[in-house]
């Protein structure tokens, strides 16, 4: 598969979610639990602390699915999730990681 078609298929199939969250031990469980209990696979996960470390940013790459709007609403309800933004699959955060997965 050449890079253009790979890119295109990703644009069609994936969404990148950007979450600002409180940085403590249970947050990742809360977030990914929302997906796992609905058998909704998370294709990619990236998480790093932001600024002074009180909050973190989680990037999730998930399949486009008719349940996605409901998923986003559910994630927004989590107490430790401060904000959710949706990006297209072309968002570069996962693209730049590709060399680590060669």
């Amino acid at each position, binding site marked *: 598969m050449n890079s253009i078609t790979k890119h295109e298929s990703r644009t069609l199939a994936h969404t990148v979610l950007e979450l600002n969250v409180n940085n403590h031990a249970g947050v990742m469980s809360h977030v990914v639990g929302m997906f796992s209990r609905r058998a909704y696979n998370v294709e990619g996960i990236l998480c790093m602390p932001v600024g002074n470390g009180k909050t973190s940013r989680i990037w999730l790459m998930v399949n486009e699915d008719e349940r996605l709007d409901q998923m986003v*609403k559910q994630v927004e309800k989590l107490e430790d999730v401060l904000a959710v933004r949706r990006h297209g699959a072309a968002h570069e955060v996962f693209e730049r990681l590709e060399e680590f997965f060669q």
Partner: protein
Amino acid sequence: MSTKKPETLTGAQIVVRLLERQGVTTLAGIPGGAILPFYDALSQSTQLRHVLARHEQGAGFMAQGMARATGEVAVCLASSGPGATNLVTAIADAKLDSIPLVAITGQVPKPMIGTDAFQEVDTYGLSIPITKHNFLVGSAEELLDVIPRAFRLAVSGRPGPVLVDIPKDVQNQRVDVSEWPEPGVAESIPLPSSELIARAAAMINASKTPMLYLGGGVVHSGASSEATAFAEKAGLPTVMTLMALGTMPVDHALSLGMLGMHGARYTNYLLDECDLLIAVGARFDDRATGKVAAFCPQAKIIHIDIDPSELDKIKTAHVGIQGDVKAVLEQLVPQVHAALRTDWLSRVAELKAAHPLRMPGIDDPRTPYGLIRAVADCLDDEATITTDVGQHQMWVAQAYPLRRPRQWLTSGGLGTMGFGLPAAIGAALAEPERTVVCFSGDGSILMNVQEFASAAEEDVNVKVVLMNNSSLGLVFQQQTMFYGERIFSSKFKGVPNFIKVAEGFGWQTLDLDKENDPQAALSKALATRGPMLIHASIDMNEQVLPMVAPGAANKDMIGG
């Protein structure tokens, strides 16, 4: 924060003080190793009354009974490991019915977490999917933030259960406290969109055949009188979910009772005809809607809910309004035109006459409907009614004249057998002046039968009406109707002598089977204070009808 002179307190003492400051008076639980420091501190409190359950699930449902009866946050306690796992069902039940609960569990000391220590279980991990939020507390100082936050979260927006897991060493940790946080109270809800409310009002005013669909959110919001006034002004025939029963008096002219799986035929037929469905604090549960694609197929939908994730979850709303139900109705009702809707209401009357809820045996106290009616005839609207889960629950939902919000406490979403008795004890603890009647079955009662002991110990004014058909009636009914009458594992071969069981726990008893005048005996028993078992045999072949087969459309009811 309010300032006082610094005190050195343990984590356990801090929790006790914070619970007192929250205004908690009664809590239910069972002590054990990992929560003993807290119990030691609790023993010194003069404000907090601890009710000792006999199983942690019983403690959880007692707290639910208190919360459901009053709308206030209630607290339950358990130790680590099996104590915490035994609480899980009661917490999950509170999540599905949006009941404000704070569950406090002991945990093994922090250095031992993750070592498979004695009575260690990952309570935090276990409780993530069944709580609104949960905490594993890392230090005694954190408790000053976590406990008020737990109460705030439990009652804010859509209510729900919050779990606080406190390691034993955190309970023992001594810290200086100079300032106390304010108690956690409900956060204010943003006002609903006036533009959406105007659109909803226009849709209602243009509708020829609207229906009002009330859910448990109306109870939580304290909006029963607003909802009834709305229906009266706009001439709206009104259906209620299981959770909403009592929000509009069942004998109100506009009430069509419960909708869905065991609703009356005319109720489900009318939903099929409506051109507008106004869902208020309801979540389109599958037991209410039947096959979703066939639910109100002609109707536009206005959906009002405090939880934005409920809007468009099952049915896409033409107008979805996020907001507190009471606040939305207060804005909406003045914009709705007063309407008599003579044509629509005469159609309602026509269908009601043709396809009413049939309650065979209603005048005979030895039948299910007749027994329920006979109990109701002995009581007034001040009585609180709880149920377990199964046939008896649906019969009571259909036949009991519920007229008051918070009169009716039942496990809706999770459908937990074993709910009724401990919930009744909790309701009686919270409102001791009321008579609390728990309708139960011979299957359900055994699931928390040990709470007969707590009820006797507390001498609560609880009456259990045990409808004994020697079977798991609703399973028996479904096997009869949908599984070729292959009755399997639903008929009990050994049935306990429930009268002796109750007497053994120190309860008063009445066996209606042995009474020549059951109505008079019931009347006397229900007027006697203290715990009382009223036992009545019913026929195993009695069915709850009508019934919509699981997955079928509501208009395709069986029987009734």
